[in-house]
């Protein structure tokens, strides 16, 4: 019986090779791409879920009420963690956490590594298993560090790392430290990824010891494991007195400046963020929230693509069933039951699906490498292969097969015997379903196309936006050195001064965009100005900063070597002028930090010193000559950028041969910050291209069937005098109506979705109807081309041929 079914199934599939091929191609592509996309999304969603304690570990953050509204802060003062454990019930384990970069030297070789300063309980909270060395308390001793297996191999090769001594650069000096343990390499799906772990107590005094009792210097994150039986909400509630006690001054200031208490009457609320959510944190209007939209959009696209391909399958099978009516009738007469017919037809679908799933798997496998590169992800089959996901995937595939393959089979098996035998079929019902499905299909395609257009325009807008500084001609690079950075800077200045290709050199403690070192920082200071709390971003700069970056000076002057007092001068931006509320800002004096008076000497035009997802914040530029400069900015002549870049690298390598040159043009840095947008654009545009191709495959197949069903009609019409064009129009217009309806449905949805997305951006394009019209027209043109391929052919046919067969 089964053998018989399979045999017939293969014969039928072979007989309709065109449809079988179209179906298999469509489904294979859909499954392949859906596998990749869902792998990506699931991988991203699995971030930080590998910790054994997941569900009870949290990052501690604080919502503060300020005059400008609620602001979230993820950093805490040094005494915070211990006090929290002592004073608030429910803390099982707690650890401070701060990351940085450092240089390790061993045997004359220097390695740049990322490091984390933590408390001993860190290893109890998180699952970073120690594989060698001191397993119980690896960071107990001063001057001992724990390194990852990867770094151990890089530094020591096959040698035993435990007990070895390496030199660590700390505050400009090299300190010998011992390796006490090696931890297993951190999984790819971890938002904490460091090479070296040290005890936070061993960090420089300026960071740790000097702040032991300082509740106002917020400089690290805190993670904790909640004790059993206490809910995060309970815990948050019981921190009320803690906040009131330790932040009395902050709260008083906030009240003075006119901050409003939150719904529960608090000015500070300590909150717990589940660790598994921390890679999805976005700060919007100062407030922390968890946003997994991108991942769900990607997952959604995967399903939409599968949906479109399944719709194709259903439509083709239903349309084809008309050709098999006689067989169905005959089988029923010969005694076939409904269930037997269902199994037979469903079996055919299952074969197609199995082939498609297997080929799709291969497709995904072959495309995995380029996919990983394109989206810069380490998502792979193994990274998501836990039993639950595998089971879920199998269930999904089965479900799709059951519905997409089963529906036509169900319809066919239900047919009336006599009608089927006479090959009479009430087609209206089927056509309505087919039309609805095609409208949905094209709606999806149009939504994705308009999404693509909007994303491209927005990305293009962000890339080409005038940011208020020269991003094309300026190279920035980090001063990674064991020498005194300011000394290195001076050497660089001397070298560059003789190079005609270099127009100007400056430096600052911060980079623009995201450099090749991948590090970003921000420094914000709140202080009292005229009895009011104001806050400003701070950047320490060197001479010629505004000139090198072509930042426009609106009033006053910039830092100048002629004025010795400039170490106590600052320049501020327009936003800062507004923050101060000063009519005549050049007369203003700011008391920053330890009541040192700084005078404002210049006002610069607003420029985007931070990520484009934020507007321009108040900014103060310093030049105290003491803060270490982290990045050098070099403005070069506009022609021959590549050669000049090579020249700059050569100079760096001459002065600092030990560390790699990580320079890049600022526009590259800006581009790097748009990674998210770029990935999303690539993903949605590839999704929409695929959606259109699949929809067209479906449309093409349906047009083939409609033409073959209406062959006689076409013949008769031609005999009575219809022209080729009228017949083509006749055959095409029904489909175009569907695309038209799809356009009407899709446009509002696309409009809503894209405008919601654009709301995330301070700088955004305006939506206009043209974008959506373009998407609609594009879908229409593609649809017309697809259909006319077959309809014109049919219309051109000699009517004698088509009438002869009857």
């Amino acid at each position, binding site marked *: 019986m089964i053998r018989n079914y399979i*045999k*017939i199934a293969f014969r039928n599939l072979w007989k309709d090779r065109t449809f079988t091929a179209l179906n298999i191609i469509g489904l294979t592509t859909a499954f392949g791409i859906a596998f990749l996309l869902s792998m990506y999304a699931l991988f991203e969603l699995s971030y930080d879920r590998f910790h054994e304690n997941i569900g009870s570990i949290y990052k501690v953050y604080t919502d503060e009420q300020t005059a400008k509204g609620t602001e979230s802060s993820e950093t805490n003062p040094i005494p915070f963690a211990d006090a929290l454990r002592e004073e608030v019930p429910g803390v099982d384990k707690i650890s401070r956490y701060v990351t940085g970069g450092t240089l390790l030297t061993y045997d004359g070789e220097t390695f740049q590594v990322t490091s984390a300063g933590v408390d001993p309980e860190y290893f109890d909270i998180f699952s970073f298993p120690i594989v060698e060395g001191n397993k119980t308390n690896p960071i107990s001793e001063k001057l001992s560090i724990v390194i990852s297996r990867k770094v151990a191999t890089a530094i020591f090769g096959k040698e035993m790392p435990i007990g070895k001594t390496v030199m660590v650069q700390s505050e400009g000096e090299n300190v010998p430290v011992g390796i006490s343990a090696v931890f297993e390499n951190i999984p790819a799906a971890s938002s904490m990824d460091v090479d070296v772990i040290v005890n936070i107590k061993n960090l420089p005094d300026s960071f740790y010891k000097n702040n032991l009792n300082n509740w106002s210097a917020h400089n690290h994150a805190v993670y904790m494991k909640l004790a059993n039986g206490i809910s995060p909400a309970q815990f948050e509630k019981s921190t009320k007195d803690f906040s009131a006690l330790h932040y009395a001054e902050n709260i008083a200031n906030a009240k003075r400046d006119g901050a409003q208490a939150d719904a529960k009457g608090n000015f500070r609320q300590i909150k717990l963020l589940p660790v598994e959510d921390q890679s999805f944190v976005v700060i919007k209007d100062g407030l922390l929230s968890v946003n997994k939209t991108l991942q769900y959009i990607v997952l959604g696209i995967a399903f939409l693509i599968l949906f479109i391909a399944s719709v194709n399958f259903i439509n083709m099978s239903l349309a084809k069933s008309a050709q098999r009516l006689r067989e169905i009738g005959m*089988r029923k007469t010969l*005694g076939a039951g409904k269930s037997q017919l269902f199994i037979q037809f469903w079996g055919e679908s299952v074969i197609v699906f199995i082939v498609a799933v297997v080929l799709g798997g291969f497709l995904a496998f072959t495309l995995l490498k380029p996919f990983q590169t394109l989206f810069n992800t380490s998502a792979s089959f193994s990274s998501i292969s836990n039993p639950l996901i595998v089971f879920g995937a199998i269930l999904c595939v089965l479900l799709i097969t059951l519905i997409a393959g089963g529906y036509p089979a169900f319809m066919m098996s239900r047919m009336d*015997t*006599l009608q089927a*035998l006479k090959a009479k079929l009430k087609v209206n019902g089927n056509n309505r379903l087919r039309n609805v499905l095609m409208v949905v299909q094209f709606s999806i395609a149009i939504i994705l196309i308009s999404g693509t257009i909007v994303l491209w325009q927005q990305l293009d807008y962000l890339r080409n936006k005038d940011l208020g500084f020269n991003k094309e001609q300026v190279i920035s690079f980090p001063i990674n050195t064991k020498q005194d950075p300011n000394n290195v800077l001076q050497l660089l200045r001397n070298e560059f001064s003789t190079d005609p290709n270099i127009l100007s050199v400056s430096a600052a403690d911060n980079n623009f965009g995201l450099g090749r070192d991948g590090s970003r920082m921000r420094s914000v200071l709140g202080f009292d100005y005229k009895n009011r709390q104001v806050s400003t971003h701070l950047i320490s700069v060197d001479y010629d900063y505004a000139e090198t970056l072509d930042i426009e000076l609106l009033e006053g002057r910039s830092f100048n070597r002629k004025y010795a007092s400039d170490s106590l001068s600052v320049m501020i931006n327009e936003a800062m002028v507004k923050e101060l509320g000063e009519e005549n800002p050049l007369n203003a004096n700011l008391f920053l930090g330890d009541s040192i008076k700084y005078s404002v000497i210049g006002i610069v035009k607003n420029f985007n010193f931070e990520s484009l997802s934020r507007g321009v914040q108040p900014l103060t530029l310093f030049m105290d000559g003491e803060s270490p400069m982290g990045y050098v900015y070099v403005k070069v002549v506009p022609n021959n950028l590549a050669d000049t870049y090579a020249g700059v690298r050569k100079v760096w390598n001459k002065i600092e041969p030990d560390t790699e040159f990580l320079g890049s043009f600022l526009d590259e840095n800006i581009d790097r910050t748009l990674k998210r947008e770029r990935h999303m654009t690539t993903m949605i545009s590839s999704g929409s291209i695929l959606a259109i191709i699949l929809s067209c495959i479906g449309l093409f197949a349906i047009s083939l069937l409609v033409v073959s069903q209406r062959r006689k009609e076409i013949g008769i019409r031609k005999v009575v005098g219809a022209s080729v064009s009228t017949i083509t129009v006749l055959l095409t217009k029904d489909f175009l109506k569907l695309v038209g309806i799809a356009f009407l449905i899709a446009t509002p949805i696309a409009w809503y979705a894209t405008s919601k997305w654009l709301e995330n951006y301070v700088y955004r394009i305006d939506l206009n109807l043209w974008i959506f019209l373009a998407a609609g027209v594009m879908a229409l043109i593609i649809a017309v081309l697809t259909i006319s391929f077959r309809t014109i052919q049919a219309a051109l046919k000699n009517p004698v041929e088509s009438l002869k067969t009857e």
Partner: protein
Amino acid sequence: MLLELKNIFKWVTQGGKRIYLLSDLNFKVEEGEFISIMGPSGSGKSTLLNVIGMLDGFQEGEYNFLEQPVHTMKDKERSKLYKEYIGFVFQAYHLIDELTVYENIETPLLYKNIKSSERKALVADMLDRFNIVGKKDLFPNQLSGGQQQLVGIARALITKPKLILADEPTGNLNSKQSEEIMQLFKELNQEGVTIIQATHSESNAAYGSRILHLLDGRRDNT
């Protein structure tokens, strides 16, 4: 008695008016009979055969098959009954194009869940009997009309039915082929199979033991 129709009415409603396809039809068939139903086109021959074959229902009347009331049966029981006792032969043969001669003949056995070895024996017998062993691996479109109808009959006989319903079995065949088919029916009848055929042709009808004339869905006794 094999089957009995009592006061059968069957109609369709068109434009608010009933159009009778069968009207007040009474009809008895004994086992071993060979009945020809005659009448012009549209007189209800095929409808009657479909009703007897339980492929089609009716609005009023009683239908007893082997003393069992068909009109009160559920779909499932009815299909079990005809699967067991009735074989169909069609004017257009209605062979399944995708199946070979062998597989076409085998299909009814599959739906009766008969074991593979038994199936093989039965089909082989049938092929033998109809002298089409050499054609068993051909597809229907590779056969002549007469050969296709032969396969159609073989398929109808494979389940050893008590009753064969043949709707214009020779309508698509030339005279020589028709004669062969009718001869075959006669032989089958002599072996004990009850046959009811619908036909236009007087000569074909003459093979039967009894002729039933139909006109506009009624018995035509003139």
